[in-house]
């Protein structure tokens, strides 16, 4: 699988959020943790399967991020850790990124004239800690793992920074 090879070559040391679909109970603890620590921005949305299953959807921190391409002021950039981050002093709140994101994980609400996005809790990331959504996950559905270790198991890639364990092939 060429795409996977390309990813693993370029980001071999990258950590990813892994969503284990078997464990998610849809409690929204991840979203609460995100908003409470990011001034009530919502950078984590939920997808719903019928009305009984709700699964968190994070920013994928895409390698070739459409939001980065769309931003007119270059406020969004992918840093050396592979995190797509917003530079708040350059953001003008135009919401181009919100429209560009194919996953709909950017909140269009402005706070102090800027939009918000997932920053993988960079304040924790630099200390070697997992993002808050992972730390708080009550059921163990979200984990933060080395990409190189992830590919050793049978998983389905849902973007460059989020991977789900295939529900059809349980360990």
């Amino acid at each position, binding site marked *: 699988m060429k795409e996977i090879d390309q990813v693993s070559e370029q980001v071999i040391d990258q950590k990813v959020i892994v969503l284990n679909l078997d464990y998610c109970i849809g409690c929204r603890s991840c979203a609460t943790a995100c*908003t409470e620590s990011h001034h009530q921005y919502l950078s984590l949305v939920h997808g719903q399967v019928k009305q009984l299953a709700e699964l968190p959807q994070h920013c994928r921190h895409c390698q070739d991020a459409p939001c980065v391409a769309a931003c007119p002021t270059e406020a969004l950039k992918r840093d050396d850790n592979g995190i797509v981050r917003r530079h708040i002093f350059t953001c003008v709140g135009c919401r181009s990124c919100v429209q560009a994101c194919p996953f709909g994980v950017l909140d269009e609400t402005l706070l102090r004239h800027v939009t918000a996005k997932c920053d993988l809790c960079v304040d924790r990331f630099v200390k070697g800690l997992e993002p808050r959504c992972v730390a708080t996950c009550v059921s163990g559905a979200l984990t933060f793992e080395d990409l190189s270790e992830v590919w050793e198991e049978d998983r389905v890639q849902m973007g460059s920074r989020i991977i789900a364990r295939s529900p059809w092939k349980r360990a």
Partner: protein
Amino acid sequence: MASAKSQKKTTPQHHKAICPICSLQDGLILQWSKPTPLFTEGSLFAVDYDRENPVNEGSLCPRGNSVAELIEHPQRLDCPQVDGRPVEWSEALTRVSQDLKKVIKKHGPQAVAILAGGSLGLEEALGVSRLAGEILQTPHAAPLFPDDGPVFARLAALGWDDGFTMVDLQERQTSLLIGDVFTEHPVISKRILKAKYKDRSHRLFVLDSVPTQTAWFAHQHLQPAAGTEALILAALLQLVSGGKELSVNLDLKAVAGRTGVSIEQMGTVATALSQASDGIVVQSSLFGRQGQVGMCALLAHSLTRVLNGKFDFLHLPVYGNGRGVYQMMAADGRKTAAGPEIIKLIEQGKVKAVVLFGVDPLSAMPSPALEDALGKLDLLCDIEPLPTMTTPLAQVVLPGAIGPEKSCRWLYLNGNVQDNPQAISPPGLARPEGWIVEQLAERVSKGAGFTVDSGEVDRKLSGDSSGSWAEMLKAEGKTLHQELTTKESGEGAYPLYLVSAAMPAHVGDGSLTRHFTWAKRVAAEPCIWANASLMEELNVREGDQVQISSKAHRVILPIMLNADLPDKTITAPAHFPQVRQLFSLPTNAATGELDMGPERISVSLPKEK
């Protein structure tokens, strides 16, 4: 009301604390960070995850994640108020003690009532009980736990199931979950799901009248008609015990007919439970969810006693230290089932002065009669950290502390006493409830007050229960026989059932829930959920206003679609008083506790004015 002022910290700090919200008492860390150039107001006070805590290993539900928001809420009460004026403590306490003495002199001590909530520490609960018994000498002092009280009443009589640990649960082979356990107490899913996926032989069963997040994970979901959960548990008990000592002995065909659950389904679950080497039965007792919730607890607990394997019964109270407050006040001789009875006395005008320690009657058991009566009291003293539905009616408001703001002890689910260290000071002039109790005791008794020590708490907690399981089952089992043989009344006027919907942000009676930003996002306003066939029958679309009527009340709310609900079943979020008012609150004659469950209702289009 005066706005809260945050403690400003310039140095980053971390303090371990216990989440004060629900009975799982998860560990968390409160931390202060340095302000950043853009966000400099106050301190960046936030919650962090305590991976070392053996209860939750860092995980927090939406409520736990919102603890910092609660503590720094702009509506925090931070100074005493008398008749709406901010005052010093001495004036407020003097007013309360003088008014209490006036009421006692004019009407007698029975005209005074004290209600306690689940956020009190063990020492504080004992202090409240002693204030009522020794100083005020009123018989009317009790905790107010409409959701958990009926369960506590049975467990207190027969003995609590203690001795297990949270980590132990993830090793169990079988789980029977009663109610929407994962939604009401999300952190426990960590243990149950680890057990489920660890071993292919693990069996997870759910007993709930509606499909839920929890039921989605079940190998088998027993979905009886709303309010008939106790019949299913009685049937399981009978099948497992073979009709011997601990059994109610019902006609199983009648149970199947009444509940809609086949004997075969019940038999499958009973067989799995009987063959399991170990397991856990967990009950989550949300207001208006399970019919005869106390009876359900009795039957579920009995089930664990007759099963061959090592089974424990775990009841998950909605309030943080609910069990501790209940046990403490009971050990001190208070009639702990009297909470609902005291509410009735208030409504009837027989109580003239009420002191509320962290409880909101207008959220817990709302009614127009209660609101009217509270407004006419000679004294209503409300002690809370945040304003509630009842607060505006109080002549005296005293600012209380939230869990991490006071050093106290709580009783954990397995009976262990847990230290709750103080991590932060309460804002402004707010004080822990224990201090308030001692001050009131001193003023009312003119200096002959008391101090509660931990030794006294430990002595009182060590008492044994001496009830007989068989006798209690025999006595209460009669209601199940009656349920099977009596034709349901009122079906014509109220053909549907209202079942409370659980939400992860729900807390107790809902008074705290409504302050969470997160709860406002998930459900800002009350509504009802119904399936497509009812919406078709009413010819309404999602969001249309409908009238919901019960014997107790009538309200107009928007209707939303939940396609998976069974026919004749409506759900609504239980943290809104508009929803809770629809429930009539029958009292169990044997225990004095509320014994409510799903409510009979009708849904129609509002009449045009």
